[in-house]
């Protein structure tokens, strides 16, 4: 059996992790921007009420971006885990596509490997060999 699903799953997890990192990075940008404005020029946007309104708007846009990247990243990681278990091919492919949006190089390769490894998902799991109990020893004469 080939390992296409396994490789695709790992790449999908890496792409999903990049998505989480991007979400954290966007959140860091918000905090950093607000902090720098507050310590350098608190009245940069006019009176404090207007400044607060601007920051609320800024939070809305960047917070939405962070949420978007986080959802894609989580989806990529979940899809990668399912790919490693070779279950739910559709969910795995969805996760790989989500990983493509967060980190293109890993994601597109994950999509290709997940697609090529479709037969691995359908393949039945080989049953474990049954353990045969040892034959009873004859009683000593």
């Amino acid at each position, binding site marked *: 059996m080939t390992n296409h699903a396994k490789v695709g799953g790992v790449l999908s997890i890496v792409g999903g992790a990049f998505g989480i990192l991007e979400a954290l990075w966007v959140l860091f940008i918000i905090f950093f921007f607000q902090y720098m404005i507050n310590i350098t020029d608190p009245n940069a946007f006019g009176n404090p009420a207007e400044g607060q309104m601007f920051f609320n708007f800024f939070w809305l846009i960047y917070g939405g971006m962070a949420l978007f990247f986080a959802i894609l990243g989580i989806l990529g990681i979940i899809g990668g885990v399912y790919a490693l278990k070779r279950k739910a091919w559709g969910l795995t492919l969805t996760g790989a596509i989500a990983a493509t949006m967060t980190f293109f190089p890993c994601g*597109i390769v994950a*999509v*290709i490997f997940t697609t090529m490894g479709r037969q691995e998902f359908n393949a039945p799991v080989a049953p474990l060999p049954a353990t045969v109990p040892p034959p009873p020893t004859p009683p000593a004469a």
Partner: protein
Amino acid sequence: MNNRAKVGGILSIVAGSFGILSLFIFIFMAYFFQTIITSTDSNVLATPEEQAAFNMMSNIYIGVGATYATLGIFAVVSGVLALRRIYWGLALAGAISATMTFFPCGIAAVILVAMGKPEFDSEATPVVEPTLVSPSPVISSSPPDAS
């Protein structure tokens, strides 16, 4: 045989066409901005520095458009290869470039071209030409005539 390679090739061509179209859109945008700026305020692009800055912006726009067009041409060519079911690797690379020009079509093209790999392999097998076989001489089972 499935038609996954065919559908993937069509999607790749569609996405590539969007990429080629992007070149014209970016060129149009560069001229559009120039027209809008000069028509609203004639003093905006008066100095050579401002003119140089605007030319640089136009060049960047045209460069981005040319990049998209190059990716689009590659995607179209690879889409044709996918329709003919030859050069699977090149067809897949073109589908990936189609993803960069128009994501929805491109990602579907990547999936379908990757799933259609057996179709490429089956087409690549050499065709055995039928050869004419001369008929073997008929051996009669009857004993030779004694007379």
